[in-house]
């Protein structure tokens, strides 16, 4: 235990340095900024900032990128509540009850409660991370390639089944992503694969170009094909309107607690991100409630639980990313990519070899969440005003930052064209119901998957049973199978059908 405090001390020492404090503040402010604006998400922003982090040291880089991530979760509820437009995918659930609250003139209360809910969720998962991550890392040290392969398979399958839309399409995109990840020089043999003789491609497709294309350019295209959002009156949100009643708070606490728990569990699992956490917690609230008809009409529970789940899953998602090196969703995959670009391979060794990185990042989460409280409660009026910036000003600026951002990585205009290709591709994919997030996860995990697959089989002398003979590996493969079965409709209806048969028999 004293070790933990020592480590946290080191963490705060790192995080409280002037430079890191600045990057943390910059990150959470930028995160809130893009979170509030509908049509520009955390993923696009993190990809845009990725080239900037090349000039920073890795600790500051991750502190800033993580700040954007959780800052955006705080901000994204604002547009959900005021405009019925989610600032990012996980905040879609907040629309369901947040917007009705705003229509009843209680938008201030909704904004205040989402901020508090986010803070509770975030804080809980940070504590969980402090306790749980070193434990997980010490277990993971004994993992061999077979285990890593199985965990990655679980992550990839879970991410593609649990994302919205068709399961088969999700898996297809994952496989396409893996294939794209293999472009470049093969590590073990030195063979150039899928490069078409191009020297530029021998280092592989640039992660920044891929991410910015799939999430930056295609987002602009999607938003341009939709209509405008309606204007709102920023003067309607006063400090006084933020204060909830005592009855509100009584309903708020238990829901927020349940949301936090669900979020943290979902966040730790590989392959499941905040979007799933928010939907799950909303569904749970609806089931628990005595009167489920209040949902969708401005129920406090419907705002508190998803927002807590959202932030707790976001913070908890750092646990598998930093301790196992396996990202839970596309944003974490970019974060992992950022670390790898700095020459740091996240894994169980990270806590031991880079304590100031690991504990510094955790400490910065505390600081960042405190910043966010200040940013989101006294200064909420400012963010609301931001919603009045028209999109026709916003998107050319975004396009410029995407172009120069991709260009700056290798000073290569070829990379910018690659980003454009993936942008158009991403737009087409979304039109046909293929979501681009599994593709990105596959892209980042593809090379690792191959490496561990080859190494596991090399060590087992070509014996394929190695993946089921090792207990931990078997466990993860069994979980994968379970996730697969659960994603199939006929399996989910099985108990109901059996139940009906049993009933008939009893009659």
């Amino acid at each position, binding site marked *: 235990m004293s070790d933990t405090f020592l480590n946290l001390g080191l963490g705060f020492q790192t995080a409280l340095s002037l430079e890191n404090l600045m990057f943390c503040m910059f990150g959470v402010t930028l995160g809130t900024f893009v979170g509030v604006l509908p049509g520009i998400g955390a993923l696009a922003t993190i990809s845009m900032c990725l080239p*900037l982090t090349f*000039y920073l040291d890795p600790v500051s880089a991750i502190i800033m990128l993580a700040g954007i991530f959780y800052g955006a979760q705080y901000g994204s509820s604002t547009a959900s509540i005021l405009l019925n437009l989610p600032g990012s995918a996980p905040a879609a659930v907040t629309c369901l009850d947040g917007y009705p609250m705003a229509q009843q003139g209680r938008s201030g209360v909704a904004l205040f409660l989402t901020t508090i809910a986010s803070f509770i969720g975030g804080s809980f998962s940070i504590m969980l991370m402090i306790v749980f991550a070193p434990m997980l890392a010490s277990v993971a040290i004994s993992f061999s390639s077979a285990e890593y392969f199985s965990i990655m398979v679980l992550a990839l399958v879970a991410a593609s089944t649990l994302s919205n839309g*068709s399961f*088969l*399409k999700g*898996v*297809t995109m994952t*496989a*396409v992503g*893996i*294939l794209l990840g*293999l472009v470049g020089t*093969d590590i*073990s*043999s030195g*063979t150039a*694969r*899928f490069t078409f003789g191009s020297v530029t491609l021998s280092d592989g497709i640039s992660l920044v170009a891929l991410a910015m294309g799939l999430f930056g*350019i295609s987002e*602009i*295209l*999607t938003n*341009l*094909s939709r209509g405008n959002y309606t204007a709102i009156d920023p003067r309607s949100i006063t400090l006084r309107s933020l204060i909830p009643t005592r009855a509100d708070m009584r309903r708020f606490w238990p829901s927020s607690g349940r949301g936090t728990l669900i979020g943290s569990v979902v966040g730790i699992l590989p392959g499941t991100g905040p979007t799933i956490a928010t939907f799950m917690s909303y569904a749970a609230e609806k089931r628990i409630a005595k009167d489920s008809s209040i949902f969708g009409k401005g129920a406090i529970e419907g705002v508190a639980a998803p927002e807590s789940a959202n932030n707790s899953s976001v913070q908890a998602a750092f646990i598998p990313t930093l301790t196992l090196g396996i990202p839970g969703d596309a944003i974490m995959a970019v974060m992992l990519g950022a670390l790898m670009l700095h020459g740091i391979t996240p894994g169980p060794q990270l806590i031991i070899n880079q304590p100031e990185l690991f504990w510094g990042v955790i400490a910065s989460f505390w600081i960042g969440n405190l910043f966010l409280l200040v940013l989101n409660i006294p200064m909420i009026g400012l963010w609301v005003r931001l919603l009045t910036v028209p*999109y*026709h*000003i916003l*998107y*050319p*600026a975004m*396009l*410029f930052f995407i*172009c*120069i951002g991709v*260009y*700056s990585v290798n*000073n290569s*205009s*070829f990379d*910018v*064209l690659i980003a*454009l290709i993936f*942008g*158009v591709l991403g*737009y*087409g*994919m979304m*039109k*046909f*119901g*293929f979501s681009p997030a599994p593709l990105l996860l596959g892209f980042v995990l*593809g090379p690792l998957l*191959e490496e561990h*697959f*080859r190494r596991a*089989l*090399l060590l087992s*002398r*070509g014996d*394929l049973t190695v993946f089921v003979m090792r207990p931990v590996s078997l466990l993860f493969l069994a979980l994968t199978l379970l996730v697969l079965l659960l994603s199939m409709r006929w399996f989910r209806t099985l108990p109901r059908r059996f139940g009906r048969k049993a009933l008939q028999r009893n009659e």
Partner: protein
Amino acid sequence: MQQRMRPNLSELVACAANAVFGLTALVIALGYELGSVRRMGPGFFPVAVCVTVMALAVATAIESLGAPVERSSTAWRPLLFISLAVIVWTQLIDSLGLVPSTVALIVISSLAKPPFRPVSMLLLSTGICIAGYLIFISGLRMPLTLFGR
């Protein structure tokens, strides 16, 4: 919205595109050394993934047969002007420098969403050029020039 129960043509095209992608990659990957399960060559894993992609493409195609047709319009105008803006930017940035390429990017991309607003576009261009100069040239010292090379 009327649901029509005919094969979802556009979705089948998407599945076919996936299948073609997998097949092309497979043809290329077969050119690499396969090796054995025990000592895999550079071709083994790619071939396995390619086969998976093709199998999944067929499965999605079968799945889409039963799905109702959803109609949505494609945003051709944004698609055209955004692509054009990015292509022009990449062609100008190395030869003419930051300012001309960025102004071109903003002018062309503004055409994606009518109406055309000359004043706000001018202000936006100025603002972005200044921000771009401060962040990328004077801040990050990227080897870019404002005008020409």
